[in-house]
C-alpha cells in the first residue's frame, strides 16, 4: 500500500503549512486581544498596564518565539489556553464539535437522500423535459446563498406558523432527541439543499457515462432487466465520483457552516472560529483551524480509501 504510506507522509507537511499560514495571517490583522477586550477604553491604559496585559495574553514575545512555543505544545496535544474561555483550546473545540459533526452528517444524509435518486432519475430520462425539470429544481438549490434560504425559512415559519426551531443552546441527540431534532432539522435542510444539488448533477453525469459503457451492454445481453441494470451494474460504478464529491463536501462542512450557524444561532465550530477571530483569541483561532484542517485531511484520506474499496482497479494497482 505505498499509495497510503505516501499520503500519510504528506499529512504532517500540510498541517505544518496550515499552522504557519494561520499563525501569520491572524497576526497580520490589525487590532489584538487587548483592543478586542477593552475596545476604545484601551486608550486609557498606561504603558505599564498595556505590557501587563500583553504578558497575560502572551503576545509580548517576538513572533518566532510565540510560534515555537505553541508548536512545541501542539506536539504534546496541548493547543494552548483560550483567552476568552480561560480553558484549554482542545476542550472548548471538542465541546462545540458534536453540533458541527451532527449538522454535517444530517446535511449529507439530506443531500444523498434527495440528490442521488434525483440524479439517477434524471439520467434515465435523459434529455426529456422531466430531466431538465429535475436539473433546474436541483440547480435552484445550488443557486441560492444558504444564508438567504435560512433567513427565509425562519421568517416564513415564525411569521407564518408561529413556530421556530429551537435556538441558542445545543442539546445533544442522546439527551433529548426531539429537542435536538427540532434544532437541527432546518439548518440541515438549509445546508443539505445546496449539497443535494451538486450530488444530483454529479450522479446524473456519472450515470450517463456509465450507462454508455460496454459492460452495461453485456449485462443487457445476459437478459438483465432495465431496473437491475441500473441498480446492480450502473449504480456501483456511478457511486465512485459521488463518494468523492460528498467526501470533499463533508470535509468542508466539518469546518462549520459559519453563515448558517450565525442565522440559526447554533454554537458550532464555524461560529467558534469566527468569534475567536473577532476577539483575536489567537490560541483558539490556531487550534480551531488546525482541528478543521486535520478533519479535512482525514476525510479526504477516507474518501481515497473508499475509492479503492469501491473500485478494484485502484486497490489492485492499474490494469491486468
Amino acid at each position, binding site marked *: 500500500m505505498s499509495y497510503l504510506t505516501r499520503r500519510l507522509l504528506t499529512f504532517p507537511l500540510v498541517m505544518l503549512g496550515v499552522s504557519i499560514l494561520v499563525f501569520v495571517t491572524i497576526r497580520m490583522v490589525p487590532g489584538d486581544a487587548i483592543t478586542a477586550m477593552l475596545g476604545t477604553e484601551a486608550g486609557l491604559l498606561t504603558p505599564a498596564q498595556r505590557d501587563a496585559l500583553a504578558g497575560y495574553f502572551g503576545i509580548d514575545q517576538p513572533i518566532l518565539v510565540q510560534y515555537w512555543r505553541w508548536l512545541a505544545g501542539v506536539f504534546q496535544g496541548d493547543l494552548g489556553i483560550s483567552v476568552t474561555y480561560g480553558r484549554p483550546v482542545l476542550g472548548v473545540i471538542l465541546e462545540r464539535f458534536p453540533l458541527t459533526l451532527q449538522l454535517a452528517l444530517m446535511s449529507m444524509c439530506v443531500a444523498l437522500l434527495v440528490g442521488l435518486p434525483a440524479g439517477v432519475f434524471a439520467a434515465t430520462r435523459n434529455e426529456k423535459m422531466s430531466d431538465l425539470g429535475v436539473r433546474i429544481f436541483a440547480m*435552484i438549490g445550488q443557486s441560492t446563498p444558504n444564508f438567504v434560504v435560512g433567513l427565509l425559512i425562519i421568517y416564513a415559519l415564525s411569521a407564518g406558523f408561529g413556530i421556530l426551531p429551537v435556538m441558542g443552546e445545543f442539546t445533544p441527540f442522546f439527551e433529548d432527541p426531539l429537542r435536538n431534532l427540532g434544532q437541527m432539522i432546518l439548518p440541515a435542510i438549509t445546508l443539505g439543499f445546496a449539497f443535494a444539488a451538486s450530488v444530483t*448533477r454529479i450522479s446524473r453525469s456519472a450515470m450517463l457515462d456509465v450507462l454508455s459503457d460496454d459492460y452495461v451492454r453485456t449485462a443487457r445481453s445476459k437478459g438483465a432487466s432495465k431496473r437491475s441494470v441500473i441498480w446492480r451494474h450502473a449504480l456501483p460504478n456511478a457511486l465512485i465520483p459521488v463518494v468523492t464529491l460528498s467526501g470533499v463536501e463533508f470535509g468542508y462542512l466539518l469546518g462549520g457552516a*459559519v453563515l448558517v450557524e450565525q442565522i440559526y444561532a447554533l454554537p458550532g465550530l464555524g461560529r467558534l472560529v469566527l468569534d475567536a477571530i473577532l476577539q483575536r483569541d489567537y490560541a483558539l483561532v490556531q487550534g480551531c483551524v488546525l482541528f478543521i484542517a486535520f478533519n479535512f485531511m482525514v476525510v479526504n484520506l477516507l474518501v481515497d480509501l473508499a475509492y479503492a474499496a469501491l473500485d478494484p482497479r485502484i486497490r489492485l494497482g492499474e490494469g491486468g
Partner: protein
Amino acid sequence: MSMLRAIFSHASGRIGGTIVVVYIIIALLGMFDITPHNPLQQFRIDRLHAPNATYWMGTDLFGRDVASRLMKGIGQSFLVGFCAVALATTAGTVLGLTAAWFGRAWDGLVMRVMDVLLAFPAILLALLIIAAAGPGTWTSVAAIAIVYTPIFTRVVRGPALSIKSREFVDAARTFGSSRRYILTRHLLLNLVAPLTVQVTLALAWSLLTEAGLSFLGLGTQPPASSLGLMLADSRNLMETAPWLLIFPALAIMISILGFNLLGDALRDILDPKTRSRPA
C-alpha cells in the same frame, strides 16, 4: 461562431446562455450608469417606498432606487466575480500545467501548497485576508482568487497529465519541439474544454462567496452596491421592506442558475467531442 450555435441548440444551454447574456447587458448598463435613477442619489423623502411606477423595485433605507442599485450591484458582483475567476484561472493554469509537466519535486511542492490552501476553511481564509488588507473591491477579488486557485490547479493538472501521455505529444517530442511550444500549443489548447466548464461554475461560486463575505460585512464598501451587500443590508428590514430582500435574492439566484446551466451545456458540448472519439 459555431460555439454559440452549439450552445443555443443545447437544451439547458439555451436558457443558461440567454440569462448570462441578459445579465452581462445589465451589468454593462450598470457600469456606464445608464440606469432609471442615479443609484447613489438619496431621495430621502421617498424612503422605504414599495415598488411603484417611479421606483420599479421600490426604494431602500436612504430613498435610493433599488432597481438602479441592482443594475449597479450586478455590475459590481460580476466585476468581482470575473476578475477573481480570471486571476484564479491564470494562476491555477500556470501552476497546474507546470506541476503536470515537470512532475516530482515541483509537482509535490505545488500540490502540497494547494493542499494547505484547500485544507484551510475557505471563508475564514477570505475573512483573514480581507481583515488584514482592509475591505474593498480589490481585496475581495484577491481573497476569492486565493481561495479558488487550488481548485483550478487541480482542474488543470488532472487533464494535463493525461494529455501529456497522448501520442501527439510524443510526436512533438520526436521533432524536438521546445518545452514552451508543447506546453502552450499542445497541452494548453486541449485544456480549453475542462477549463471553460470550470470557469462558468466558478463564476457561480464567486457570486455566492461575495454574498457570504458581504453578509459578514467584509465585501463591497458602501455606498457602492453589490448583490451580496444589498442582501446583507436587507436582513433587518426583511419585515418592513421585503422587496429589499426579494429582488437581490432573485437576482443572485437567477444569475447563478444561468451560470450553472451554461456550465452544464458547455460540458456536454466540449467534452463529448474529445471523449467519443476512440482515443
